[in-house]
């Protein structure tokens, strides 16, 4: 499916903020199963410096800075992307064999070993590990384990945008059984790691309107987060969305991948202001008819 993606994130500060510097992971890139056409990130007011590059995991990153006080910031993304359908994984290696399969995978950007240890935002949590273990089928394969944990988590949790914020630890969200996609995904990553499955966090987009006859998905109003998990050298990384209880397929566009939210956050920033700030976030991911050209605005 091809999409026309529009994203706007706005920040406004009560007092002008001095020396703002942000690290953005907003630009989708080509990946296996994903092709990105034109992509434009417009930043207002124009930053005094901007550097585009890639991070360790291969995500597109943009570092921007302003040398004067700013009181409002706006990031506008317009991109065209195509996501190929992915087969729902049926078979796969047995969970008990996964550790042996990891040997020899090295330390390249997407090597599974980056995703086994505790990461800055996902510490081991005994209750989550216990929950994940209880969800496992008998003598499971890796894909079946991933789906089982994802489904059990979805069924145990209540989607509640008011229960958590962007800094809530997985342990807290799980204890309350409430949260949003970021919480669902980070809890699931912790659960998978506890059973030896390398797992990471994916940030990206979800199509806004469902295909005819299907329900509207949770998480379409903002950037979405889901899980990637490694299922051996042949299957590689599989993506599962616990918030919507499904494998992440054609309806998803990946922007950034990392060990947890800290590695993949759309906007990381440091402000030298004590005052309050406001955020606005709007997303449209519109399926395109074949051949329809995407009209992209130029940089002002």
């Amino acid at each position, binding site marked *: 499916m091809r999409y026309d993606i529009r994203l706007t994130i706005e920040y406004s500060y009560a007092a002008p903020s001095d020396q703002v510097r942000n690290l953005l992971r907003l630009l989708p890139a080509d990946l296996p199963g994903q092709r990105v056409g034109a992509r434009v990130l417009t930043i207002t007011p124009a930053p005094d410096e901007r550097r585009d590059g890639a991070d*360790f995991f291969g995500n597109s990153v943009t570092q921007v800075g302003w040398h004067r006080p700013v009181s409002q910031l706006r990031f506008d993304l317009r991109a065209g992307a195509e996501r190929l359908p992915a087969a729902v994984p049926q078979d796969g290696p047995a969970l008990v064999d996964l550790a042996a399969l990891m040997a020899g995978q090295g330390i390249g950007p997407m090597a599974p*070993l980056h995703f086994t240890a505790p990461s800055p935002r996902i510490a081991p949590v005994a209750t989550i590990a216990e929950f994940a273990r209880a969800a496992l089928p008998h003598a499971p394969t890796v894909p079946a384990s991933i789906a089982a944990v994802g489904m059990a988590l979805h069924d145990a949790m209540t989607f509640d945008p008011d229960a958590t914020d962007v800094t809530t630890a997985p342990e807290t969200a799980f204890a309350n059984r409430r949260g949003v996609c970021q919480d669902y995904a980070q809890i699931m990553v912790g659960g998978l790691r506890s059973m030896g499955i390398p797992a990471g966090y994916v940030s990206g987009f979800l199509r806004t309107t469902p295909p005819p006859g299907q329900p509207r998905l949770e998480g379409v109003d903002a950037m979405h987060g889901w899980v990637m998990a490694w299922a051996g050298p042949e299957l590689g990384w599989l993506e599962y969305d616990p918030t919507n209880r499904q494998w992440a397929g054609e309806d998803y566009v990946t922007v950034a991948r990392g060990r947890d939210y800290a590695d993949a956050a759309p906007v*990381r920033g440091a402000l030298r202001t004590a005052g309050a700030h406001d955020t606005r976030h709007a997303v449209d991911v519109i399926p395109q008819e074949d051949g329809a050209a995407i009209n992209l605005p130029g940089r002002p």
Partner: protein
Amino acid sequence: MTPAAAPLPRTALLADYTPQPGVADELFDGQGRMRPVWQPFITQLASLSPEDVATRFGRGAQYLRDAGVYFRLYGGGPAQEREWPLSHVPVLISDAEWQGICDGLAQRAELLERVMADLYGPARLVADGHLPAELVAENPQWLRPMVGVTPASGHWLHHLAFEIGRSPDGSFFVLGDRAQAPSGAGFALENRMATTRIFSDPFPRANIRRLAGFFRAFRATMEHLAGDGRRMAILTPGPNNDTYYEHTYIARYLGLTLLEGEDLIVENGQAMVRTVKGLEPLGLLWRRIDGDFCDPLELDESSQIGTPGLIGAIRHGGLNLVNAPGSGLLETRAFMAFLPRLCETLLGETLRLPNIATWWCGPPAERAYVMANAGRMMIGGALDTALPFASGNDTVLGPETALAARLDRDGRRLVGQEAVTLSTTPAWADGKLVPRPMTIRVFAARTSEGWTFMPGGYARIGKSDDAMALAMQAGGSVADVWVVADRPVPADTLVSGSGPERAPPGILPARAADNLYWLGRYVERAEGAIRLLRAWHLRMAETGDASEPRMAAFAEHLAGLGLTPDRPIPETLPMLIGAARGAASKVRDRFSPDGWNALNDLARFADRLTGKVAENGDAAQALSVLLRKISGFSGLVHENMYHFAGWRFLSLGRAQERADGTLLLLAAFTGPEAPPGALEIAIEVGDSVMTHQRRYRFGPSPETVLDLLAQDAQNPRAVLYQIAQMRHHLERLPQPQPGGEMPELDRVLLTLDTDLRVARPADLTVERLGELRHRLAGVFGLISSRYFR
């Protein structure tokens, strides 16, 4: 083993000195003979009377107290400062033996550099199977944003420390590598200063290698790394760090600027220091914060002590770090299992100085070996970076029940390390020498001629026979290490021989200026409060009647300042002094230890006073003592502090606070509503009783008081005098770009100055004084936006 063959008679000093069997000893060799390197020292020590020894040790302790040397104790309640635990007896090592150690460590430093360059570069060591992938990929010390970076200098490591010990066979081995941000080099200097005062005799001291040459070479290297026209600085986590003292000490000793993360910003890939003159480019940062905290944008997002964009500046090539962030990786305990083989792989050489035998419990064979030999193993986390014998790590001495299960389940997260036996060295206990376990820390710096080593300076000494009690946090102590040459060595200090050589002018970080300004304000505010309270108690002692009109007016004024006199010393007073101390603690590198000690003494005294002093005469007397102490601090600062920009900010704060306090005082005590006796209070609190008597023929009137305390340009207690002082200091501070209209700050102060000069005393009504005070208060915002941002 008895040292029967010692050429010395067994003095009382050595009566209890019995090294344990199977343990190497620094003082006696395996045959019980005193090692020659110790003989002159022991002979001399034995010749001293117990009183003499006590006096000398006292001199050492006095030096450390005067210098303000402390370390901070972690854990438990709020962080505490402790006196530096100096073990008075140095460890002596012969020049020849030391040279052998340094040769081995130079090779090891080179090896670590190559390992670092590989793991942040092509990672061939992992690809080729020389180092297990999980020890890197699962390692929190491996900082992914540094992968692929090329350090501007071409090197990742510039300063290292090695913890070494002597094994029972007499050879030295490495217990751990310190590569993250090694601490101790500054403390080593202080150890030396203190032991020099204890053992001040020309002999045997003349033969001891000096430490200053090491620092000179290191400083020259850092200057070179910084590049022309760019600053070099130390980056500290701040006053709450356990070794903050050392950061301030080294900054002073080497003439480096002491910075915190917020003093820096990055613009277009260039790191800059925010100074009172604006942004100054920075070329070298000696990092004393952990790598992960350097940059909240690319590394630990929760870091409050880093600088956003710093990694970008390193990547861009305009900034060298000592050491590059990510060097903490080399401290990984499990690496010790692989370094001997990596030495063969990378350098084609055998490791000259072995390290502690280490088994990474990932592979089954190593697990089995560790299990079978658990009785003589220390078992701990594979990725742990704490030194063996450091307190607070989870190292257990096997065998532990359930060890087998733990090894099977978690093997790759564990290492076994041989439970080594350390050598013992003399320590002083109850008038005698006793053998105590020790390790030596050796400091290395990269120079253009290769690695150079500090000759001695730092050993850790155990509290008891227990080697685990080596850590200072566990009650261990620290000793100087003397590297003893065969003949006298030339004296050597940082001072060059070619006459006075002035360093380039320093820079004043904006944050330091801000703290100095507030230090000035708080000290002055506290002094004003003391004067007011003393005047109150003196009057109460006379009349004992708080209800008479002037006392009621006085009480109201005190209450307005948060100094309600319902108890002799209100809480607010120690709080003000605490605020002054807080501001000073952030700029300790800019003070003499005397100034800092005076402020601490003041704070302690004020804390003790609260709640302890009885009413009236007693309180007035205690306040007089407090006033003398605070004047003592001000005197130290203003008489002794060099008149750099920092002093001007301190003075600016003091002048503004004094002008403000005096305006308040005059508004309260000179108005038409003021009761009889109020004018006398104003004159007394304004410290102008004598002057008033001399200058005016008649008793005080509102006009005489306003003339003297508001409008007199010669009276240091007058508002006008202080406004003029502020203008004087500001003129000598960095100025904004010339041209254009007069800056608001200059305009406000000039107008205040003029208004005070041209006013008639009768014009200075209570309302008018309030209005002047309001205008003066706006000055802070203007100073702040010119200098503190």
